[in-house]
């Protein structure tokens, strides 16, 4: 695969704060890669550095093998979809989209063709002359995407674009964005703190924490084989048991089985631990059972599904077990 973006030893300091100590990554052509992490982990800063809106304190940025580290944003062939869209309020949809083409002095006829194409792509044809101020969040978001895409950038940067939308709309837009990326074959670099979103849309997920790359892998690997306790706990829910040394044992709630105290047979050869149920929470598709383990302060959470036969209640004694193959050892 062709290399598209490369970050070499990128560091970023604001005053005396080191936001990003030493970041390295190579992003390939046609990938949908997501930078995932909690607020303040540096993911947006990295994105902005690729766009040219921030400069790294040290390190190099390469775009299609060209060193762009000191290049201004308006000279880079990347475009960004901003978090709150940043649509120009004094221009209508068409003029917003046209802006980049005007700046690059694209001939008028070509401008029209490209604008028409992108309006079709984002289903905004009827909004051509509308003012952004009169549009819903979802519509504004599509204008922002159209405005970026019309310039045929090599890389599209998306800074938490779906954050302001409600749940259903967000789900819909996630699919649309994924299809758009696949259809156009562009490289998408996506930033979000929503791990579900990252897993749904991405070919590759980069989990960040305090400016450090925790793990860089496909969504499947990130979920089932997290390398560190941070990744294991940030992605989905997880239970942890401390082990010797710098390691911990992680087991997903849906892999935990419960059995009655008297009846160990269902556990087979697996070791059973005992505890008391302290809370049962109804979450729609699942029940979350919280068990306080004997002889320790650990609380384990287990998912129980509708077709499980035993309706668990609080203050019941219960046996907790799992298959050895579902265990994951992580660094603490």
């Amino acid at each position, binding site marked *: 695969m062709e290399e598209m973006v490369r970050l070499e030893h990128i560091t970023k300091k604001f005053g005396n704060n080191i936001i990003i100590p030493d970041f390295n990554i190579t992003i390939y052509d046609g990938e949908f890669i997501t930078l995932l992490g909690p607020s303040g982990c540096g993911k947006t800063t990295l994105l902005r550095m690729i766009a040219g809106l921030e400069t790294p304190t040290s390190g190099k940025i390469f775009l299609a093998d060209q060193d762009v580290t000191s290049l*201004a944003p308006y000279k880079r062939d990347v475009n960004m979809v*901003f978090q*709150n869209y*940043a649509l120009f309020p004094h221009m209508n949809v068409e003029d917003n989209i046209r802006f*980049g083409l005007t*700046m690059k002095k694209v001939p008028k006829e070509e401008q029209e063709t490209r604008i028409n194409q992108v309006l079709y792509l984002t289903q905004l044809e009827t909004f051509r002359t509308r003012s952004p101020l009169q549009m819903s969040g979802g519509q504004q978001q599509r204008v922002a995407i159209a405005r970026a895409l019309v310039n045929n950038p090599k890389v599209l940067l998306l800074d938490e674009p779906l954050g302001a939308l409600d749940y259903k709309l967000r789900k819909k837009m996630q699919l649309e964005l994924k299809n758009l990326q696949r259809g156009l074959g562009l490289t998408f670099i996506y930033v979000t703190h929503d791990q579900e979103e990252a897993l749904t849309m991405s070919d590759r997920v980069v989990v960040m924490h305090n400016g450090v790359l925790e793990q860089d892998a496909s969504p499947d690997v990130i979920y089932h084989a997290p390398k560190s306790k941070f990744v294991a706990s940030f992605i989905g829910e997880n239970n942890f048991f401390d082990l010797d040394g710098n390691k911990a044992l992680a087991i997903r709630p849906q892999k935990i089985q419960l059995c009655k105290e008297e009846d160990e047979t269902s556990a087979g050869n697996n070791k059973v631990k005992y505890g008391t149920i302290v809370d049962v929470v109804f979450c729609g598709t699942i029940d979350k059972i919280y068990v306080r383990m004997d002889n320790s302060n650990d609380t384990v959470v287990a998912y129980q599904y509708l077709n499980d036969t035993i309706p668990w209640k609080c203050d019941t004694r219960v046996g907790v077990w799992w298959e050895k193959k579902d265990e994951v050892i992580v660094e603490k």
Partner: protein
Amino acid sequence: MKKNWHSAVLVSYSLAILAFLYLPLLILTLYSFNDSRMNAVWTGFTFKWYTALLHNRRVIEALTNSLIIACISTFVSTTLGTMAAIALNRYTYKFKGVINGLLYLPILIPEIVMGLSLLVLFSQTGIPLGKNTLILAHITFCISFVIITVGARLEGRRFDLEEAASDLYATPWQAFRYITLPLALPGIIAGGLIAFTLSIDDFVISFFVAGPNSTTLPLYIYAMVKRGISPEINALSTCMMMTTICLVIVSQLLQPKKKSN
């Protein structure tokens, strides 16, 4: 609004004060149409004092001076002030204290101090008093007002729009021209109008830096008042008032509408 006697008292009191503010001005306007030379007795409605003004060469000269000075001062102060306001809004500066001092002191210090300091400056540097010194002085006190007015409009400025423009291949100048400037324009015009109003109306500072042959309208009015009451003063004052009122209303209409919570 509380609908009880509290509000009745408040409203009446407020109306009384408004009346207090406007009554003298209304009386002045009224008497500019009075036929009588001795103001107080009303003898008839006439425009003759206004027509007399049009034929008064010195009034025309003062008016011309005022307009020229106001136009030049407005242009220069609005340009310098807008540039400064945009920069102050966008960047943080090291010497914030000095900048704030230079910015706000001209407004807070009594005008008389500013006026005489300019007089001292001009005389000690050998610049003869005249239209030029008036222009220089007017620009000086207008700049601060322009910076504050434009600055207030820039408060809602969205740097993300400028970043978006940059992301869309606009050079800094293009981003300024297509994004920052159009959005700031109402504020700039408001600032310009305020500068114009201040210049036309200025008395105290002009008093100190005007030369013998360069009168402005307010200075002319002062000279007339000192010499004695004449209905022409009423007419002239009324004209100035009306001009000021129009300028203020237009400038206020350009201020951003406050969003209701």
